[in-house]
């Protein structure tokens, strides 16, 4: 353990490595359930209200983001607006993004973008829903900034040495969406068929559109 007083003054060389674990999770699960039951029992809250909030939280899904990507592939003017102002462009398609701003970053033949939140698990949840388990793992959060090419390799994606890899740490008020490259041989596809190629992982930069990632990371990741 680091001594409380010294913690913020310098970065101790002997600090314990980050270890993924469930220690404490059961306690908070139990406390959450107990608090919820007490609030209902005392008449402060109804189960239906909780269900409505949960349903609202669970409504957004990666397919919404995929529709935005497919439209950007088909409509160059929309893509320009999307890259300039993600929230406004998403609103054109009827998606209301609650986060402050959506920064859309475009993959090209020379540039690959990868999103991570090192400090917690910031993610455009009001558009894409909940992030994948590995995104919130401490292993991914620590390694994605430190050795991103190796992390992507373990996720099944090898970035060519002549391509720039740009990691975006989603550490504050912005949220991020990767605009993947449109796969070759998709000229004949319509918007719905194109959207079906866009996975959640592709919009994080952990996969290419039209290809599944392995979703397995080395290290201590045990999921959560």
């Amino acid at each position, binding site marked *: 353990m680091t001594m409380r007083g010294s913690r913020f003054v310098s970065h101790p060389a002997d600090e314990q490595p980050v270890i993924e674990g469930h220690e404490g999770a059961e306690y908070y699960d139990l406390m959450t359930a107990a608090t919820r039951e007490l609030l209902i029992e005392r008449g402060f809250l109804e189960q239906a209200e909780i269900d409505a909030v949960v349903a609202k939280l669970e409504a957004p899904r990666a397919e919404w983001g995929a529709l935005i990507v497919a439209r950007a592939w088909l409509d160059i003017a929309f893509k320009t607006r999307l890259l300039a102002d993600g929230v406004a462009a998403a609103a054109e398609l009827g998606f209301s993004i609650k986060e402050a701003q959506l920064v859309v970053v475009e993959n090209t033949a020379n540039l690959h973008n990868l999103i991570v939140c*090192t*400090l917690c698990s910031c993610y455009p949840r009001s558009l894409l829903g909940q992030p994948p388990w590995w995104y919130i793992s401490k292993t991914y959060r620590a390694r994605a*900034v430190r050795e*991103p090419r190796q992390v992507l390799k373990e996720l099944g994606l090898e970035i060519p040495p002549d391509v*720039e890899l*740009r*990691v*975006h740490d989603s550490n*504050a008020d912005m949220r991020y969406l990767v605009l993947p490259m449109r796969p070759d041989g998709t000229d004949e596809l319509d918007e719905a068929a194109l959207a079906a190629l866009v996975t959640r992982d592709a919009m994080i930069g952990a996969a290419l559109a039209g290809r599944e990632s392995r979703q397995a990371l080395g290290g201590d990741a045990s999921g959560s």
Partner: protein
Amino acid sequence: MPRFSPGDRVHIEDLGKPGHIRIPWYVRHKDGAIERYCGSYPNPEDLAYARRGQPSVDLYRVRLRQIDLWPDYAGQAQDTLDIEVYDHWLSPAEGSS
């Protein structure tokens, strides 16, 4: 009027503050370039303690080279990292006007 413009070279300070800090260790004391100005936001260091976060603070995205962040970086020299930094954590980089 934001203090920095895109392309300006900046130094990320280490303010040594405790609490809900959004500037991770690995970018402190590092130099980068302003990628964009993101607008002005309530200060999260204040919001975390149920205060109003006022006055709001300017937020920028700063682009750094991975080889500047990690001396033993195993990727390519052209690899970069973009991160959001609030104005009070920034100063003009040494040697920049």
